[in-house]
């Protein structure tokens, strides 16, 4: 048996370990492609060209496409906003960003560590927005504070009383509220958590 076979075969567990210990889902996707290429090489060297061809066609091409679609559609934070607030949704980095854009930018910074994308879902009026939150179409809403406080909403303790933030972000998921409460350092928005089980009894 040729000696180079052992060196080439040793590459396969190396690439597999890299894939297993990767925490970022998008990097893992690319490293899956690396693993597919090395696996095809190893299968060919070990004398199975048909298996290598299947690995390259199905394992690398199809699996990566399907994983990419799955990762892209699942790792998303859907934020419901009012259509009137979305005046210029494109230039998020402009210095004269609107308060909503500042909120979205702050959320993007927070959720980048959790590999979540922030996706804005526009709605026409407040009723539609709150109904979408109850129907679990979106994870959170962000709208201008109306002044009327809900009883079940937990307002942020360190928000200044003299100058209330113009926006209010309401989420229905406890985990998202905890993350935002500890890491979101934006003076533009107030955070609140709404428990949908109690809201469902009220309506």
């Amino acid at each position, binding site marked *: 048996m040729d000696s180079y076979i052992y060196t080439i075969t040793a590459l396969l567990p*190396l690439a597999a370990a890299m894939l297993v210990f990767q925490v970022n889902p998008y990097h893992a996707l*690319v490293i899956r492609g690396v693993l597919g290429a*090395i696996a095809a090489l190893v299968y*060919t060297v070990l004398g199975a060209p048909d298996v290598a061809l299947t690995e390259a066609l199905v394992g690398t*091409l199809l699996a990566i496409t399907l994983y990419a679609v799955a990762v892209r559609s699942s790792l998303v934070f859907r934020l419901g906003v009012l259509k009137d607030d979305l005046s210029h949704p494109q230039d998020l980095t402009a210095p004269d960003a609107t308060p909503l854009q500042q909120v979205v930018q702050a959320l993007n910074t927070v959720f980048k560590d959790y590999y979540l994308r922030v996706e804005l879902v526009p709605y026409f009026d407040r009723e539609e927005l709150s109904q979408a939150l109850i129907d679990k179409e979106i994870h959170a809403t962000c709208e201008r504070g109306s002044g009327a406080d809900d009883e079940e909403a937990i307002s942020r303790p360190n928000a200044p009383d003299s100058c209330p933030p113009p926006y209010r972000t309401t989420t229905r998921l406890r985990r998202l509220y905890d993350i935002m409460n500890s890491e979101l350092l934006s003076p533009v928005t107030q955070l609140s958590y709404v428990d949908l089980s109690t809201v469902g009894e009220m309506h």
Partner: protein
Amino acid sequence: MSFLNLALMAMVVALLIPLYEAWRDEDIWQTMLSLSSISSKAAVMILLVSVLRDDWMIGVVGVIILSVGNAGFMLLAHILKRLGDA
């Protein structure tokens, strides 16, 4: 025969460089570059093995992997680019 064996060993060592680059995850595009590098290098290594063993079947597989790998790379790059725009 011995020279081709040595060349294959050198190629294995060269394959370790983009592997290390993929392991040091900084930018997603750096990882994509290392993927394309590894994919091309693996295909060329398959072609070399086919010459080494005088087996045409392996060579055909190498050529197909060389072309299909690029197509998959393009698809993945498009999805990642859409992700950056959104």
